[in-house]
């Protein structure tokens, strides 16, 4: 498995922090901020891991995930969803849509790095 992660997130400073963290871990980090065009970008860039925000402009992370999982090429793509919506119902919806790991904001850097490592191991 390669080390290419796509971060779909609309908060510029979260993008910068996560990009820094994962780059330091040896990941090649791509970013994308618009929900409406996220699926096209994911299909075009074909990352090894997707870090996906829940609330995005244009289309929600949940809708993006549902659309991806309907595509056989992306059914096994590890997806870490970041969200400010941490209620049990939100987690259930994300799991139903096929999320690999669900993480509520504000998260710690260690949690993000550990989750990414775990997802990579599981995918191998």
């Amino acid at each position, binding site marked *: 498995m390669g080390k290419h992660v796509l971060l779909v997130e609309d908060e510029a400073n*979260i993008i*910068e*922090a996560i990009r*820094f963290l994962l780059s330091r871990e040896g990941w090649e980090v791509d970013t994308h901020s618009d929900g409406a065009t996220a699926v096209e970008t994911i299909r075009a860039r074909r990352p090894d891991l997707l870090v996906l925000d829940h609330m995005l402009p244009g289309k929600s992370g949940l809708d993006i995930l549902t659309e991806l999982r309907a595509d056989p090429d992306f059914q096994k793509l590890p997806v870490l969803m970041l969200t400010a919506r941490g209620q049990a119902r939100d987690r259930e919806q994300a799991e139903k849509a096929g999320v690999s790991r669900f993480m509520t904001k*504000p998260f710690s850097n260690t949690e*993000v790095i550990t989750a990414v490592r775990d997802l990579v191991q599981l995918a191998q």
Partner: protein
Amino acid sequence: MMREALTGTRIRDRRIMVGTKQSELARQIGISASYLNLIEHNRRRIGGKLLLDIAGALGVELSALTTGAEAALVATLREAGSGAAMPEADLDRAEDFAGRFPGWADALALSHRKRAALEHTVKVLSDRLAHDPELAASVHEVLSTAAAIRSTASILAEDKDLSPEWRDRFHANIDADSRRLADSSKTLVGFLDVESGEAAVTGTPQEEVEAFLTDHDYSFAALEAGGADIAALINDALQLTSVAARHIARGVLERMVADSARVSLGDLSGAVQELGLDPPALAARFRVSVPCIMRRLAAMPGQGYGLVVSDRAGSLLFRKGVEGFVIPRYGPACPLWPLFQALGSPGQVLYQRVRMPGRQDAMFDCFAATETTGHVALNTPPLMQSTMLVVPIPTAGKGSGPDPIDVGPACRICPVADCAGRREPSILSDGF
């Protein structure tokens, strides 16, 4: 035993107040002390000459014995009974009940008043819940900013080998995010701060504009006179804290100036006296659109008319509320409002009497009409806005005029049970 019931209590209170013994008063009016005792304890009806004699003996007007604070008590009891779907025959015995069991009556009335206060609180909180989308966005903003700060701060604290360039960059990010967090926290508190009063709760640009207009009573005399500086008005408005709110307020004020140039409030007042509250006739008189005349009617000081403007997507662009006519701050309003019916009949002026459910079932005459806005271009769909004037019907006028239709504020906070227009269950029907 009806109103006379409490008369006994009033007689007893007055007699004690003037220091006359029961036996003495009985002797003066020619009845036995035991019979007067029954009267004073509301166990015997009283009226006519005997009541006049008692009033004379006690040196008070007759009305002092037949009306008083008890009327309010009886009204409260009737309201409590009505709320419990008590038959009219039983409601008519409220005064009897108050007379026979004054302590219980007071307790029931107190309980009813507390219930009414709680209902009001529930209504306010329900309204808050109805704001979910904005609330969710506000919470999301706070948590996302906190996430950015936490992540960036951890990098700064833990990475000792961070280059000066990255360190400076992250410091700048934290500085910017901490400012954002302060602003978004204030917004969030504004949403949740029910205690400080609804008028003080702002949070969205639309609410800021409403607070601004409400503080001016939706009336700007200087603008009407044509001598005011809109930019200065907006800059001086403490309520308009966001760029979006100032933008919306500018649009509202500019339209107000344009409308006032076409129809002065003085001329309109005279025309209303002549033609009555007839928006199409008034619009024809001034050669303006019906929505324009409705905006001017709503701007007339002291009239208390409400105004709602919507676009074709159902977004409420302008809200001037009227007591009893609940206009939701967020989300779609009741689809039965004439405001939305008018969108389906451009060019037609709709008139409909409506009844809004609530503790007083307030009624309103609503006039609604649609007009196109923006530029007209070939093969471009016109932008439409619907405007609805809301005229309160005084209690005395409820019995006359056309039959009203029942409308609500918004499904989520509407108690009407059987409604073809219902989009979602009401939270008021499940235990509220």
